[in-house]
């Protein structure tokens, strides 16, 4: 941009680089290193090189937990996108004032703590103050019981959590889309539901695939919903990792589980990136 050498700007860039390198990259590297250390019941760990933490992962229990996590995250991601995509399209058709209302609502929900959302659902599903009580009042359920903890309570929590994020990810593209094909289809007498499935879904396919994969990774990392709304048998890998690290103080095993999760995450994100690139061509 200028003929003058930009030493100042270089130093400023170096500051940003070091901050991220030291406090983001180094901890991740260190975690990989610790995953090869030996657990020490007396302290944190013994510095050696062992494979036993990874061997433990492939011994049934953790293996099953991860498969279950993969299943609930995948199901959650598909449900979230199925709900968020029509919402984003519908919001983009509103007046600017109502669009702003939705943006603020969604941003609030996106920023709101998992803890608060989990607590709110815990209450709305409880026998003393929520849907069960409403059903009793309406005479639909004579002896109401709490609906949580259960698999579907956890699922509602996950969908609720992911919904605002995905809608906000799709919305900008929905707002800027070229509406001429839709309008042409409508003019030719195509029913609106067919316009949605035959015009909108195909034209957003690359986005929908990459957003679903991103959401899958996001839900894999959710901690509060499984612990608050799910049963222990619904607990995901995230809960187990935190349990190993904080509860049992078995940091090397927790680190190994986290490294496995990191690998799954990296592969999923790479596929998402490829899907998006492929769609752009």
């Amino acid at each position: 941009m200028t003929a003058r050498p930009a030493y100042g700007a270089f130093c400023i860039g170096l500051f940003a680089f070091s901050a991220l390198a030291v406090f983001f990259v180094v901890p991740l590297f260190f975690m990989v290193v610790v995953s090869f250390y030996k657990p020490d019941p007396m302290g944190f760990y013994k510095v050696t090189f062992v494979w036993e933490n990874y061997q433990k992962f492939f011994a049934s229990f953790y293996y099953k937990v991860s498969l279950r996590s993969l299943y609930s995250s995948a199901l959650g991601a598909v449900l979230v996108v199925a709900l968020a995509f029509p919402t984003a399209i519908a919001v983009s058709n509103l007046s600017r004032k109502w669009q702003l209302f939705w943006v603020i609502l969604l941003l609030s929900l996106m920023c709101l703590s998992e803890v608060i959302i989990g607590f709110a659902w815990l209450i709305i599903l409880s026998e003393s103050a929520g849907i069960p009580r409403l059903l009793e009042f309406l005479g639909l359920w004579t002896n109401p019981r709490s609906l949580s903890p259960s698999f579907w309570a956890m699922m509602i929590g996950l969908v609720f959590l992911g919904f605002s994020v995905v809608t906000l990810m799709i919305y900008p593209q929905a707002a800027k889309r070229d509406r001429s094909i839709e309008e042409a289809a409508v003019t030719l007498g195509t029913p609106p539901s067919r316009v949605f499935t035959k015009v909108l879904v195909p034209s957003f396919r690359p986005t929908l695939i990459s957003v679903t994969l991103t959401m899958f990774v996001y839900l894999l990392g959710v901690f509060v919903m499984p612990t608050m709304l799910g049963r222990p048998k619904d607990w995901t890998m995230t809960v187990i990792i935190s349990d190993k690290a904080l509860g049992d103080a078995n940091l090397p095993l927790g680190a190994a589980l986290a490294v496995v999760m990191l690998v799954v995450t990296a592969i999923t994100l790479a596929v998402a990136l490829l899907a998006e690139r492929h769609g752009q061509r």
Partner: protein
Amino acid sequence: MTHRASIMFLTLVALFLIAPFVVVTGVSFGASNTIAFPPKAISLRWYQTLITEPDWLKAIGLSLLIAAIAATISVSIALAANYALWRTGSGLSKLVFALGIGPFLLPPIILALGASLFWAEVGWYGRMEATIVSHGVFFVTLPLVIIARGFASLTKEVIEAARMLGATETQVFRTVVLPLIAPYLITGFALVAIISVNEYLIANMIAGFVVETLPIKIFNNVRYGYSPVVASASMLFVAITVTALLVLARLTDLIGLLGASKED
């Protein structure tokens, strides 16, 4: 979707999104000692408990302090990265940008565990400073992307004019660049602060047993038997979050910032 069907659909979605908070509000204004909705009698006692009990006050104060400093750190890093990219366009600054997107994409548990191991090694495990620095670095993605929009909005002519009139780089930055990107800085700051106030997992794994922030306190309360004071604490949160975003909507063009304006 026909127009009417789409409005009906949106109304249902809005109900699904808002209903939990209506119930929590009801519970928080209840007079009884147990969680009940609809409340039999209205009272403010749980809000009174919240703002008079030192335990809750301390958690609120800690959360706000951590959020304010973490947001400052985050915006400084994001501004530095963007300035370097804008001035030099070097490979290093592009690398910084790529690194800054990373924390947003990774599951927080991985960041949290990495950070807690790192801080244990450094000797800051269980200290508030560690939570602050980690929050500041991990939440850099949003300000990074938002401030980049600010720099993209700067026109070359304004900068060139300032330089031709003999302004030094520092003067150009202080008098031309900074005022023009200020709304983006404020938005980035506010978003990081809001996210930090609400964050549970990272704060808990780095120092949760000593530095009890509001989400950690609420979580512990819910886990080990709870009273309606949790509902009032939650509603305080919702109020802080929504107010901050409404103020932000007044100050800046939120729809435009999301990149949803047709003119982009």
